């Protein structure tokens, strides 16, 4: 799985970037979400994969025993996911607002309108 997961993450990155490069607002959001997902998985995979053994200390022990997953990337990931959600939610609402105001779903047209003003 160590070999296949990077392939999948690479595909996610590619798809995310492809969507971000579009000028359609909705697709840009989709791209952002995909890119965020890919980045999280990237961190996770790079931090090292451990099957099973979650980073929890058993009732009988006072210290963790191998095999257990590296808790540091997980802690980072949790933060990243939550903050990523904040960005996603904000951008969705922002785009709704832009769409309502300008009646346009095209990033380029927004610019032109800006210049016209």
């Amino acid at each position: 799985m160590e070999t296949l997961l990077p392939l999948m993450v690479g595909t996610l990155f590619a798809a995310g970037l492809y969507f971000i490069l579009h000028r359609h607002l909705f697709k840009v959001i989709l791209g952002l979400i995909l890119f965020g997902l890919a980045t999280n998985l990237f961190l996770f995979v790079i931090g090292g994969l451990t099957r099973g053994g979650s980073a929890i200390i058993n009732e009988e022990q006072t210290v963790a025993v191998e095999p257990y997953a590296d808790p540091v990337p997980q802690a980072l990931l949790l933060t990243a996911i939550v903050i990523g959600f904040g960005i996603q939610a904000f951008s969705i609402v922002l785009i709704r607002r832009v769409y309502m105001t300008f009646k346009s779903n095209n990033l380029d047209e927004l610019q032109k309108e800006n210049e016209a003003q």
Partner: protein
Amino acid sequence: MLYAILFGLLMAAVAPLLHRLLGRWVAVPMVLAPLLLLGLYFSFMPEVLQGHAVVQRHTWVPELDINLQFRLDGLSLLFALLISFFGALVMFYASGYLEGDPLLGRFYLFLTLFMTSMLGLVTSDNIFGLFVFWELTSISSYLLIGYKQAEKEARVAAWQALLVTGLGGLALMAGLILLSVAGDSYTFSGLLERRPEVLEHPFYLPAVVLVLLGCFTKSAQFPFHFWLPNAMAAPTPVSAYLHSATMVKAGIYLLARLSPVLSGPDVWHVSLMTAGGITAVLGAVLALQHTDLKAILAYTTISALGLLVTMLGIGTDEAMKAMLVFLLAHALYKGTLFLVAGGIDHRTGTRDLNRLFSLGKHMRYSGTAATLAALSMAGVIPFLGFVGKELLYEASLENYLLLGICLVTGVAFVAVALIMGYRIFWHKGEEKTQVHPHAHFRLYFPPLVLAFGGLLLGLLVNSQALPLLQQGVRTITADPSLELKLSLWHGFTPVLGLSILTLLLGLALYLALPWLGQRAAVLQPLYRVGPDAAYHKLFELFLHGSKSFILWLQDGHLRSYVMYIMFFFCGLLLFILWRDTPGIDFNDRIYQLQEVRLYELVVLFLVISALVYLLGTRSRLTSIVVMGLIGYSSALFYILFGAPDVAATQFLIETLTVVIFVLLLHKLPAFIYLSHQFMKYKFIAISVVFGALMTYVMLLVQQQAIPSQLKEYYGKVSYLEAHGRNIVNVILVDFRGLDTLGEITVLAVAALGIFSLLRLNPEKGGKP
């Protein structure tokens, strides 16, 4: 000596305050400060005259060999005395020249800052120290040239001077660093000791080129001479002090300082003689074509600087003697003439030669000073200028070309001296110039002092000036036993003949000037292709070029910016991968593939097929659902590889995202394809490259995994110290609790933003 510098900086800093407190009496402390420094440097005189250098060290950044090392030898002391003596006179003069100027305090700030940095420059032994002071003189020169900030001419000239000398300064920095690498020393005294290594090092040539670039820009050598005449937009005291007597001689000083280290190879001598010779003749010729007093003086200054550089290029003991004596003589007479020109400007309101006649009646003292200085400039016995000129001829006797250069400049100097010392003051013209009746003591006293200085030093050249000049020459030639003999009268030698010939030719040239002036118009088209014009062309080209480049680069499209970032990122990554070429061990990889479980493959297949579907779909609702699917699948991976907390979060977040999406779906734009077909392929290409690179990077990182000590640490202490069994949770709420607080804050800010965006109502007066 550090305290001298600190004292100067302090005086500069308090100058505006003093001006506010003392009003016009601010001049008193500002004149006393340089006098105090002058006394301080005089106190070092006996030690230096015995041939010892006064050395002081203060460590600053020892790790980088950047230290404040001061070293006062004959050359430094000569310059330091000149700078502080001139400083006192110019400060005094300025109080009269700029009387009533509301910005006088600021002027004193700049001027004192300049004087201090100049003193630091000539006493610094560490190359970085010298560079810092060198740049400080450029900056203070910029501020002083642009002192009349309301005038566009002054601003342009200031900017030009800063750019030219600043770029030269950068070259100098690089050159000095190369030198210090070659000689393995960061001080000039250290470089001198390791001269053979420096000369043979491959860095010698680039270092010389860069150092010369720095010195030539600073000392206005051809083809960088153009900034100096423009710098005359500064108030006259500044022109006299910076752009004639001291700052432009910083380049000469550094060349003299480095001469014992770098001279020897032909490249040094030839480039100095070439640049200096061209500059000397060019300055002399251009000086005669102008009618503005300050322009004439500026061009003769350029010419004199050219002569000094030529002498340094010749490099013989005679030439070094001539260089140093002429430098002193020039500073004295040119300073006088500048100050007199300022006085004339002040009294008559003009500096145009053709409107100034018989000023001598009204400006007796200034006239006397100008005449004395002019006599020194022309090289008439018994002035110091005469001694200097004799030495110049003596040093260049062996080469006819050099002799010719000296003769041409000498003749032009005589003609200019006749203009400055005779024509405008004593010549009876057909019209009278209006002269403001009130003579100003502060405007004629300093030039008188300087002019008499030139006369006295000439008369007493044997006794008074000699010891210090001798120490200076010994420094430049690095020959501690060299004897300097100066005398007014050499007997009837060929050199005396040349001096007399110069005077006669100069007189002839002066008489022929009106006739020549009518024909000089032919040369006008030449000025349009000169370096000054080239500078402005280049400047415009640069502005225009950067404008269109920025417009091309920053076209306002999000995708362009993302694309540039990705291009750069991928390029950098590819470069690193290509350079280090760490391969991936594929055998090991294939072996690993055997461990793959079936359920893992199922989830993987789910993600990939969902992605493919997402790329093709045109429905917004479908794409939201598919996005959710991908999110849930990645959460499954977190579960499979021991991260239940992450998975839980991912499930929650994914659900929330889908809910928000669906709630707002009817208010979101419909799905249509907007980009061109060609763009699509471009996007696909860059995306695929990027994705492939990321995969490759991940595989590489996995192959060279670094064992984490943090994992072990948290595994040990999370229960014992923080009393929590779930290590991830313990990290989040305990070990890195502050980070989590930051995260919550970010979410709160995002929530505030969302809330206000939703509540914002354009129809009710809220602006979109």
